[in-house]
Structure formats: structure tokens, C-alpha cells
């Protein structure tokens, strides 16, 4: 391949490394209203009274909006296709506040100083209620997070607001109990993963204004422009035709921006005042009122025979969605559906889950989307099972892992059309020199090094749901405009889609310009999430190119007065195969601009009935200080099967970045609340993400399978890469010290305590 599978630089790289003003806040006009939110100091309360008199008197204050100014129509901020599985449980502002940091009032003024001053002068009287903070006690608790009658669930997800249930489901195949009874070894363990912040470098932000036609224009740092259009129309109770959403460059998303965290607030201000407005979350706001990973407690029962064949898997997940249900009903599903299928020999499985409301900030979508939590539990359980069987955890995986061609009952019965998981494991094992390093090496000086392993899978888009369309236009001189609705959030999706188009159209990258995303002009795409862009949008590119090639041929043929069947297109020119006559793409591009009734434009959509999983193996090597328990990342060997690698550089960086995030999740990232529900992890001082000193060496290689349903054989890469570090690191700690950690993060103190308990 000429362009695909090549490490081409990102199409926007020059602007980014030159620091060009291409992000939301760079684009907002200097004179737009500054919007800030007054937030609740209580985890659960009813607003009795809000006195705005003094605040409104502050010079420069344009408006202060409270729940009385908001439509009483509930909606969800989750960026999902309609009808959303996430319940409609929010108002823009509500009389009931449900977590410390919940929005109470929207303040807009001509400058930061005025707004800050006014915020201090708003007097709110609360009726403080007892909060529900323990997610283990939430189901059927007397305290209801959403007692309101206009709460509604649009989708049968087992939700019941009168039981604090955001979702419940039971799934399975075979008779799990009798299979487990028949096993020689049954392990029953509970694992706990915490809420984590995506912590993208650009915080949440939105700027809004009215255009020439009186429509609400929204420039926002979002992964889901088309969903934002619908969410805003619903929340503001205005027609969708009145809303236009533009996505500029985005400073990272990782799922955080698959929730419309900020859009409604400046939108309401602009809609009410007619004036441009912007809301830029501080880092603190991004930490206390955002969309972090769902905290989950996962019980795994695993049955194996004496030869190490895993015969039965039973998973129960309890997920904490916090104050609102964004992505609650869907993330949880992945904790079982993307962990259980890794093991191909199970005769029976069962997967039950509950998702509950509590009075902490709402959870949302974070890279891995529940699979990360489930895979931590499953892979940890399998590693523990290896210990029980006295077996090398790599060997236990070799004999149980899912293989190409197998059906995966727990993965909606899909078949693994493409799966190089076995090759990934073999290669990762070699990269780390497993046989010489497993289980540990004493390095002297009180240091010990252990290795640990984990496997992972994800999906490639949401099967039979995610829909992507692209458009490609031939312009004068024959250059192409590739119009996408998929949202590049720094990942380079604009680039890889252009690579695919260049490959299909037999041209250079320079001849394709990428345009996106503007809901007024871009073809519909549900957005960039669920690892969908390469696979789903990529296929839309392939289809569109195919149609466009036909149109170019037909046009060329008509200009040469021959039959379309007689011509071919080599990317540069349409050639009459019979006569050798040709017409260049450049000339066609110019000629169609006069006296022409066929638009040289194609737009096709794609949706897939399946979601082919990428696979991956990660092996961690860590060093432990035997006295203090301090843990240091030494090496991380990762091998990924994402099918054909569209851009080796970007895929590698994606993988390295995901692993670094996974290392943070494993070692220190943790959202800590006090007993009143106040979030202590409200800055980069208190919520540490890995610095370049914390990640050790990360080495990535690819073992590609060929996905027959994907573009050029490709599957997804974006999410799977975060899944292996937590279980692999926990396994490495165990192999080094014998200490088992079932609750993240792994800290030096936990390791120290574990070692101390073992001495006893």
C-alpha cells in the first residue's frame, strides 16, 4: 500500500506545533460574555431561595440564571444515538442539587472580575438533605437521588429511579452453577476499581453565539457535535434546526467529551441574551463536575479443571454512576461482554449487573468504557487462578484464550473473524524475556523485580448502531475535499481517514483536504467514541471513494465521448482503455464547473452489524523496594492486534499514551471524597497523572490480523490500549512479593502492608 500503513505526519501537525490559534478558546471573540457557574457546597440539598439582588447590581453582569429560568424538560448529557440508553434525569439547573459542585446558577458578565464578584454576592438558602455516598448501599436505599416524577428512561435498560437503579440486566449461556460445581477449582473474588479522570490537557469549554439567521451557533471542544445539537435542542426546548455545532481542534478527550459537560450553560445565556458567551472550565471544575470513569466493584467466580481449562465464568458488576446516569447503562455492559469472551473454552457464563445512583459527580465515558474495569477484574482473577493451579499465567492463557474463528457467546455471539491474540502473547513474552524473568528476580540492595501479564479486547464501534457518513467532492484543478463528521480530538483521525481516501483514490495526501466538523455542512457521524472512527468511518470513506471513482469515470467518459465501461481511472487521469485517449482529473475538475448537471460529489454511510474486537497483550516489569513497598515501572511490553495498522506512528503513540494512562490508573489515580461528599482530588496537585518520570519504558509492537469487514483489514486502536496495565501491574507486584491487591490504585503502602502481613 502506498499511503495506508505509512507513518505520515498528521494533517494538522504544523498548526499544532506552531501554536496556532485553533482551539475553542482561541476562536472566541474577545468581547464575548464570560460565563461561570455557581456550585453547590452540599452533596444533597433542595434550593429554598436564591437572592440575586446584590449580584445583579454588579456592573457588567448581563444575566444570572437559576432553575426557574430553565425548561422543565429532562434530558441526558450523554453523547449517544437517540433514543439514548442513558436516562433523561437532568435539567440544565434543578431545584435539587445532587453532588458537591452541582450547578446552582449561571452567571454571565462582561469580564471575569465582574462575574467572580457577582458569584460571591448570590445568596442561596438550602434545605440540606442526607446524601447517599456509599454505592454499595445505594440500591433500594431510603434516600432517593432522583425521586422526581418526570425522570424517564427511553430505553429498556432495567432502570428504576425509585430504587436508585440506573440499569440492571442479567445475561448468560449454559448452566453456570452446575458447571462451577463440576470444576476442580473455583475461585470467588471481588475487585474494586475507582473513578478516574480523563484529565485531557484542554479542560471542557464551549463558546456560543447567534448567527445571521438567529440560530444558535456552538463552538465546542466535543467528541460528539451531532449529539450536542440534539442535546441542546432538547435541553433548551428549541427545534434542532436552530442549532449548529462546530468542532475546532480539541486538546484531548479520551471519552470525557462524549458527554456535553459545558455546552448547555453558555447556550442558554446566548439564547436568552442574544449575545456571544463562553464557558471555560477551570481545572478544578474539570475535576469536580465532569464525567470520570465509573467506579465499579466486580465479583468474579471462575471455575477450572485440574488441567487449567477455564470452564465457567460468572461476573457480577456493581457500577456507580453518581448523581446522573450519563453512560451508566452502557459502560457496565462492557465489564462483562469484553472480559468474559477472552477465554474461549468456557462452557457457561453468567453476567449480572446493577448500576446505581449516588450523590457524587456523575460518571461518564472514559477510554475503555467499562471494559477497563471488567478486564482488571477478569485478568486479575485469571492470574489468581494460575496461582491456585500452580501454573505460569502465560501458559494458562495460552491454553484458554479465544482463537481466530471461534464464536464468542458472551460477545453477543459474534465470531472472532480476525484474532492474533496468540501471536500477541508469544511476542510480548519474548519482548520481556518472560521465561528468564518470571516470576521475579532479586536485584540485590533490597530491590526485587517482578513481571506480570494481562490480555485485553475492545470493540470497533457499536454494532448495528454507530453510523458514519463522509462526503468527498472534486474541486477545480481536481483536488478533493473530504468532509467528515467524525471528530479528531488529537488522535489523528482526520489524517488516517485522508490516508484511506488517498489510497482509494490513488492520489497523494496533499491532494486531499479534510473538513470537519460542522453540523451544518458535515455528513452525519455519531461522533468519535466506542473505538468507531477507523473502522466505521473508515468504511464509509471506502464506500464513498468507490462511488466517487465511478462518477469520475463516467464524467471522464462523457467528456471523451465514450462508454463508461471503456474507461479506467488511475488517480491522475481517466483513460479510454480502447483508444488510449485520456483526460486528467484536473481538467475534469475544472470542466464540471461549467455547463454541468452532475455534481462530482459522493457521500456514503456505513454501519456494521458486528464490532470486531482488537486484541492486545501487555506485560509489565516493576521493581519493588522490599522495605518501603515503593513501586517503580521498569518496562512495559505491549503487542497489539488492531488488524491492519493504518498509520504506524499514530497507532504507536495511541498505544503508548493509553498504557501511560493505564499506569496512572494502576498506581495512583484516584478520586477521593470526604465523608460529606466533597471531592479532594480537585487539582493536578491532588490528582496526579503520570509525569514522564513515572512511566518507565513503554515498548509497543503490532501483530496484525486481517479483519475482513474493516477498511484495509483494520480494526480499532483507541480504547483497548488502556486496559492491560492495571491487571498486569497487579500481577507483577504479586509475582514479585506475593502480595495480592484487589483494589486500585496499587500504592506503596498497600504493598508494604501486604508484605508485612505475609511475614506474620
Amino acid at each position, binding site marked *: 500500500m502506498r499511503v495506508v500503513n505509512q507513518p505520515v505526519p498528521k494533517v494538522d501537525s504544523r498548526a499544532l506545533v506552531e*501554536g496556532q490559534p485553533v482551539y475553542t478558546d482561541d476562536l472566541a471573540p474577545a468581547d464575548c460574555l464570560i460565563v461561570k457557574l455557581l456550585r453547590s457546597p452540599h452533596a444533597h440539598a433542595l434550593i429554598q431561595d436564591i437572592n440575586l439582588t446584590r449580584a445583579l447590581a454588579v456592573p457588567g453582569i448581563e444575566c444570572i440564571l437559576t432553575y426557574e429560568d430553565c425548561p422543565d424538560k429532562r434530558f441526558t448529557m450523554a453523547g449517544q444515538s437517540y433514543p439514548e440508553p442513558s436516562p433523561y434525569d437532568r435539567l440544565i439547573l434543578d431545584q435539587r442539587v445532587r453532588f458537591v459542585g452541582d450547578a446552582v446558577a449561571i452567571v454571565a458578565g462582561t469580564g471575569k472580575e465582574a462575574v467572580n464578584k457577582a458569584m460571591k454576592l448570590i445568596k442561596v438558602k438550602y434545605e440540606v438533605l442526607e446524601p447517599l455516598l456509599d454505592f454499595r448501599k445505594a440500591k433500594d436505599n431510603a434516600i432517593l437521588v432522583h425521586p422526581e416524577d418526570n425522570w424517564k428512561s427511553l430505553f429498556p435498560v432495567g432502570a428504576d429511579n425509585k430504587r436508585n437503579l440506573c440499569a440492571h440486566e442479567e445475561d448468560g449461556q449454559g448452566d453456570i452453577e452446575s458447571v462451577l460445581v463440576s470444576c476442580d477449582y473455583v475461585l470467588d473474588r471481588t475487585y474494586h476499581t475507582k473513578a478516574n479522570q480523563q484529565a*485531557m490537557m484542554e479542560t471542557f469549554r464551549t463558546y456560543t453565539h447567534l448567527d445571521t439567521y438567529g440560530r444558535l451557533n456552538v463552538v465546542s471542544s466535543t467528541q460528539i457535535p451531532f449529539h450536542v445539537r440534539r442535546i441542546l435542542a432538547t435541553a433548551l426546548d428549541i427545534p434542532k434546526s436552530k442549532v449548529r455545532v462546530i468542532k475546532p481542534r480539541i486538546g484531548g478527550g479520551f471519552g470525557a467529551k462524549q458527554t456535553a459537560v459545558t455546552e448547555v450553560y453558555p447556550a442558554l445565556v446566548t439564547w436568552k441574551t442574544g449575545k456571544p458567551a463562553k464557558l471555560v472550565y477551570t481545572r478544578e471544575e474539570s475535576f469536580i463536575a465532569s464525567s470520570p470513569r465509573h467506579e465499579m466493584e466486580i465479583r468474579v467466580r471462575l471455575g477450572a479443571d485440574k488441567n487449567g481449562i477455564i470452564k465457567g465464568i460468572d461476573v457480577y458488576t456493581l457500577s456507580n454512576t453518581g448523581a446522573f446516569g450519563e453512560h451508566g447503562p452502557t459502560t457496565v455492559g462492557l465489564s462483562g461482554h469484553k472480559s468474559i469472551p477472552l477465554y474461549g473454552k468456557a462452557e457457561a457464563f453468567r453476567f449480572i449487573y446493577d448500576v446505581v445512583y449516588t450523590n457524587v459527580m456523575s460518571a461518564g465515558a472514559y477510554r475503555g468504557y467499562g471494559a477497563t474495569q471488567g478486564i482488571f477484574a477478569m485478568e486479575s482473577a485469571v492470574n489468581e487462578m494460575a496461582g491456585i493451579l500452580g501454573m505460569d499465567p502465560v501458559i494458562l492463557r495460552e491454553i484458554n484464550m479465544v482463537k481466530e474463528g471461534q464464536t464468542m457467546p458472551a460477545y453477543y455471539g459474534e465470531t472472532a473473524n480476525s484474532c492474533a491474540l496468540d501471536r500477541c502473547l508469544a511476542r510480548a513474552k519474548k519482548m520481556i524475556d518472560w521465561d528468564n524473568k518470571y516470576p521475579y528476580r532479586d536485584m540485590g540492595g533490597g530491590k526485587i523485580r517482578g513481571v506480570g501479564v494481562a490480555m485485553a479486547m475492545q470493540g470497533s464501534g457499536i454494532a448495528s448502531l454507530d453510523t458514519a457518513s463522509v462526503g468527498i467532492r472534486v474541486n477545480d484543478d481536481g483536488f478533493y475535499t473530504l468532509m467528515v463528521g467524525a471528530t479528531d480530538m488529537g488522535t489523528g483521525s482526520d489524517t488516517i481517514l485522508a490516508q484511506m481516501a488517498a489510497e482509494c483514490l490513488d492520489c497523494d495526501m496533499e491532494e486531499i483536504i479534510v473538513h470537519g466538523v460542522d453540523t451544518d455542512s458535515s455528513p452525519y457521524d455519531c461522533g468519535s467514541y466506542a473505538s468507531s472512527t477507523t473502522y466505521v468511518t473508515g468504511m464509509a470513506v471506502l464506500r464513498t471513494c468507490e462511488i466517487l471513482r465511478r462518477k469520475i469515470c463516467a464524467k471522464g467518459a462523457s467528456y471523451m465521448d465514450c462508454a463508461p465501461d471503456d474507461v479506467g481511472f488511475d488517480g491522475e487521469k481517466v483513460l479510454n482503455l480502447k483508444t488510449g485517449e485520456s483526460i486528467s482529473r484536473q481538467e475534469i475538475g475544472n470542466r464540471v464547473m461549467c455547463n454541468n448537471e452532475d455534481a462530482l460529489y459522493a457521500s456514503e454511510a456505513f454501519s456494521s452489524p458486528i464490532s470486531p474486537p482488537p486484541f492486545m497483550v501487555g506485560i509489565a516489569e516493576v521493581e519493588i523496594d522490599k522495605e518501603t513497598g515503593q513501586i517503580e515501572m521498569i518496562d512495559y511490553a505491549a503487542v497489539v492486534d488492531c488488524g491492519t495498522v493504518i498509520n504506524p506512528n499514530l497507532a504507536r503513540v495511541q498505544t503508548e499514551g493509553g498504557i501511560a494512562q493505564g499506569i496512572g490508573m494502576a498506581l495512583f489515580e484516584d478520586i477521593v471524597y470526604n465523608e460529606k461528599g466533597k471531592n479532594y482530588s480537585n487539582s493536578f496537585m491532588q490528582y496526579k497523572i503520570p509525569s*514522564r518520570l513515572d512511566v518507565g519504558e513503554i515498548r509497543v509492537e503490532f501483530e496484525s490480523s486481517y479483519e475482513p469487514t474493516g477498511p484495509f483489514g483494520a480494526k480499532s486502536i483507541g480504547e483497548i490500549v488502556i486496559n492491560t496495565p492495571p491487571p498486569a501491574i497487579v500481577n507483577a507486584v504479586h509475582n514479585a512479593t506475593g502480595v495480592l491487591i484487589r483494589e486500585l490504585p496499587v500504592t506503596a503502602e498497600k504493598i508494604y502492608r501486604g508484605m508485612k502481613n505475609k511475614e506474620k
Partner: protein
Amino acid sequence: MTVEFVLNGKRVTAEATGDTVLLDVLRNLGCHSVKCGCETTNCGLCTVWVNGKSRLSCSVLALSIEGQEITTLEGVKEKAEEFGSFLAAEGAEQCGFCSPGFIMNVLAMVRELKNPNIEEIKEYLSGNLCRCTGYMGQLRAICKYMEHMKEEVHS
């Protein structure tokens, strides 16, 4: 009050109150490369040079820089492009939001340290957070850039 200083080689004046920070002044003066990532001095996105030294503009009071020389990415365009091309060649700019502050500190590093080893590089840049890349691609870019600079000196 007004403050007068040298911005990327040009004398400029700006309005500021006692608590105005340099970051806001610079963005208002059109230096949009300077980003705010945290407000608590932890992320390095707002890195600029004050009299040639890397500092965090989110925590430098605007009035305190009277008469001093401030350099942002806009003022070292050529060098930034040169190193930036190495970054882009690795795909390691990713979302790009941390790139300006990072590039400023990399350029400060190559000026300050002679032949730094990998550990010294990591330590010098530890105050520049990046959530996209896992840092490895940035390191590859730095190593290749430093090799390239050595070759330039030799030839």
C-alpha cells in the same frame, strides 16, 4: 495600571491589575500558543521564558515583569518549527495542546544542558505533562532532534 515589557523582541504595554497573571496578558496580546492547563503550576502548558528562563506564566504576576524580556513560542518560530517537525514526524504532538509549553522547555533544555542523557532529559521536562502520548514519542523526537543538531554543528 500598565506594564511595559519586551515581548518576543518588541516593546509592548498592557493593562494589568495587581493580581493579573502574565498568562492572561500574553493571550490578550495575541500569543495564543500560551495555554492554561491547570492554574496550580503542575502542568507546564503555560511555559514561557522570562529573561531566557522557563517559567510558568500562570503564576507570574503581570506587574512584576516590568522591563523584562518575555519569549513565547511565537517569538521562536523558526526553532519551534524545526523541533516541531521532529515531533510531528513521530506523531507525538497528538492533540497539540501541551506542545507549545513543551517545545519552549525543550528549547530551554537544549540551551542549558550539554549532551543530556535520557534520565536528564526526562527530569528536565518532568514539569511538562502530556496526557496523550505516554511521553515516549516526545523522547524519540528529542533524541532525533539532538542528533540532527550535532550533525549541523559538524557540517
